[in-house]
């Protein structure tokens, strides 16, 4: 991709966001759409978030227990380190990368299909601001619900870790629990939530952008969907680096 091509896309994205971030034409319709989107994008992701968090939480504890088995390190280090990993990176960044795949492809393919079947043109002909009507509820819905998913992910990640301690002899449960409570900084929770709200904005807006400007047929919608996931994932990783440096550095 050339530099001018990238700048073109950036400009197109900013112009689209200008159309999206405006007052809805009908608040009643907007709130109805918002509830639908929260259900579709957020509530429907709860099960996958719980399953992934539980197992990754368990694996994190096993790996840390295996790799830092040193008599000089206290046993509670496993609980402490696992908590920091889950809170700071896994439940926020890695979970958002997973959501970029699930939710991002959903948004992109839905809007892309509406584009190639002229449903977006039909909205425009009626005088509806199609970008605002279709994209804003998705963006707001995901940004509102992602903190819930993050907190759930943190909780079930730690439950997964507890499960390992309870059913194996990797770390005694009491040591793990002591480690979890040691040197706790409440700001880390807020940091994770703030970060994920920004990631939710990226996931929904970038996926919507790729869908909205899809052209051609079903193959092109698939391509737009793949591009949306790839670009969103890269942007999440880059912005994670910047946000971490700004807020924690």
């Amino acid at each position, binding site marked *: 991709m050339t530099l001018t091509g990238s700048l073109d896309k950036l400009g197109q994205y900013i112009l689209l966001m200008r159309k999206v971030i405006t007052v809805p034409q*009908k608040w009643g*319709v907007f709130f109805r759409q918002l509830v639908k989107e929260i259900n579709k994008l957020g509530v429907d992701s709860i099960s996958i978030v719980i399953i992934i968090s539980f197992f990754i939480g368990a694996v994190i504890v096993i790996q840390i227990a295996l790799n830092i088995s040193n008599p000089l390190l206290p046993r509670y280090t496993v609980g402490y380190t696992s908590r920091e990993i889950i809170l700071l990176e896994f439940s926020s960044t890695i979970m958002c990368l997973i959501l970029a795949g699930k939710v991002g492809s959903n948004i992109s393919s839905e809007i892309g299909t*509406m584009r190639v079947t002229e449903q977006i*043109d*039909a909205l*425009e*002909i*009626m*005088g509806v601001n199609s970008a605002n009507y279709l994209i804003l509820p998705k963006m707001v819905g995901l940004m509102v619900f992602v903190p819930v998913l993050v907190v759930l992910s943190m909780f079930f990640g730690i439950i997964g870790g507890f499960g390992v301690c309870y059913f194996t002899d990797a770390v005694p449960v009491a040591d793990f629990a002591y480690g979890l409570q040691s040197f706790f900084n409440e700001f880390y929770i807020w940091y994770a939530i703030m970060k994920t709200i920004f990631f939710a904005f990226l996931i929904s807006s970038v996926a919507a952008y790729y869908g909205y400007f899809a052209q051609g047929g079903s193959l092109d919608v698939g391509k737009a969907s793949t591009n949306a996931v790839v670009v969103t994932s890269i942007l999440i990783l880059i912005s994670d680096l910047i946000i971490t440096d700004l807020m924690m550095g």
Partner: protein
Amino acid sequence: MIEVKDLVKAFDGREVLKKISMTFEEGKTNLIIGRSGSGKTVLLKNLVGLMRPTSGQILYDNRDLTQMSTDNMKSLRQEMGMIFQGSALFDAMTVFENVYFPLEMFSTLSKEEKEKRTQFCLDRVNLSDAGHLFPSEISGGMMKRAAIARAIALNPKYLFCDEPNSGLDPQTSLVIDKLIHEITKEYNITTIVNTHDMNSVMNIGEKIFFIKEGNLEWEGDSGSVLLSQNQALNDFVFASDLFKKVKEVEVEEMKENKTKP
């Protein structure tokens, strides 16, 4: 009435529409015909404002679409209805919700009145019992009828139809043509139909515009299509053997009428 004056549309310097001027009359079914790639769809998209012309004017009862602000364009669009080639019904909504949608967005009627109006539109296109079905559950002809119901929900002054018969069997095509024609007369709408279908030309073409390579090659009514001496029009209209025969019969009849005392 819609007037098009010296309309030019170019893509990367290549002119697809070349200074086209035409007038679409109120209460009439105006047909745009032409070969694939002749510029019909580009013309229609310019007319409804989905594309911006390179130059020229599009006057909706003396209101120039090309000079309109976004707000004025939005209010003009509430006077338009459009039937897309693939119907473009919203997949996530039932047929009833599809027809109700423009009323919900723009009408000041009460909820009961909007529902009544929706049911009236569905009754008008003979879809009284299909309101609860989703677009994926109905046939192509029913989709087109639902699209017509949605297009007339807000009592439009201008109705645009992009190849309304594509993908339909001849009988269903006749039903759709008849419906479009009746609605045009009933509500005195300025209707513009983009079509390839010669049956439509003969059945409902009150005013016909033939576009060739971005130019307005010919205009007239369905009667004069058969008798036109325009070679390009004849090549297009009488490409099928059936219409060749029709023309031969018509010309024979005319000769006989002339020789009769």
